[in-house]
């Protein structure tokens, strides 16, 4: 155990360097204007990479039992599911907006 931890320590500055580089890349990726889908995939990917580095090395999740790591990952997956579960609400609102506009137009034309 002691030997293992001894090997982990010099990595801290290396992880720090990676986190700084990934933050710089994130800002560089975010500033130009282009497709929000590609931007979203890139940014969420980079953020997940940074989150992994912090959890695995700074929070020592790599040195803990694997079961703990699996338990910790679960809420993140549930959060993704949460967004998907809210989707019907989002699409309903935009569908209502689409539905209302032509309806009022036809009413107006009937009045004429």
């Amino acid at each position: 155990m002691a030997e293992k931890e001894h090997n982990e320590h010099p990595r801290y500055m290396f992880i720090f360097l990676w986190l700084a580089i990934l933050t710089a890349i994130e800002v560089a990726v975010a500033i130009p204007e282009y497709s929000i889908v590609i931007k979203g995939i890139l940014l969420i990917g980079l953020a997940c990479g940074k989150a992994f580095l912090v959890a695995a090395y700074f929070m020592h999740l790599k040195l803990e039992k694997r079961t703990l790591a699996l338990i910790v990952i679960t809420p993140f997956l549930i959060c993704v599911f949460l967004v998907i579960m809210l989707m019907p609400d989002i699409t309903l609102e935009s569908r209502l907006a689409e539905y209302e506009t032509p309806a009022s137009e036809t009413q107006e034309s009937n009045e004429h």
Partner: protein
Amino acid sequence: MEQATTFDHAEDVYEPSLTPDSLGKLGMWIFLIGDTMSFGALLAAYAAVRAGAGIIGWVPPDEILGINLTAGMTFLLICSSVTMVKALESIQKGNVGRMCDFLGLTILGGIIFLGLQAYEWTHLIKHGLTLTGIPEHGLSGDLITGSNLFGPTFYAITGFHGLHVTGGVIYLIVILRNGWTGRYTAEYYHEVEIVGLYWHFVDLIWIMVFTFIYLL
């Protein structure tokens, strides 16, 4: 060690803890898992509100929020995470003085972060981003229109995170005080490790908030 002696007479029913070296660590992990869900719920609600803005639309965040300052704040939190692991590393080697120095630096990082956030909020409120409305002009000077929900979601999420940083700073000050009284040694350092878990979690959440609220 204590556990092993307690369960000596019931070896057949003994099940090792998920974190055998410290039960407090397991407790903190359970708290953090719950906290992930509160931030997850806030961010999911943000996604729903933003995607559901419909024809009113959502102002691009970079028209209202300055990214450069926040990128600096992100970097600052990453630095304070590094000083936190350095503090833990020091006490594991038995160097109490060095641990206190690094804990002090971590607290300083947290306080500067809060100061910058207060500066940012004051600036945004003066600019017109309130709980009920958005500024008339964007940072580029153009007229902007969009959902009024930009303000409340922004202040709720960054405010909730700021509250966590405030709590973390107080928590760290308590641990630093304990360190000064000589509570921690090379054998007894788990309380430092546990405050570290909390602090890194706050950093991790900021990485997510920075991405979803400021950059996307």
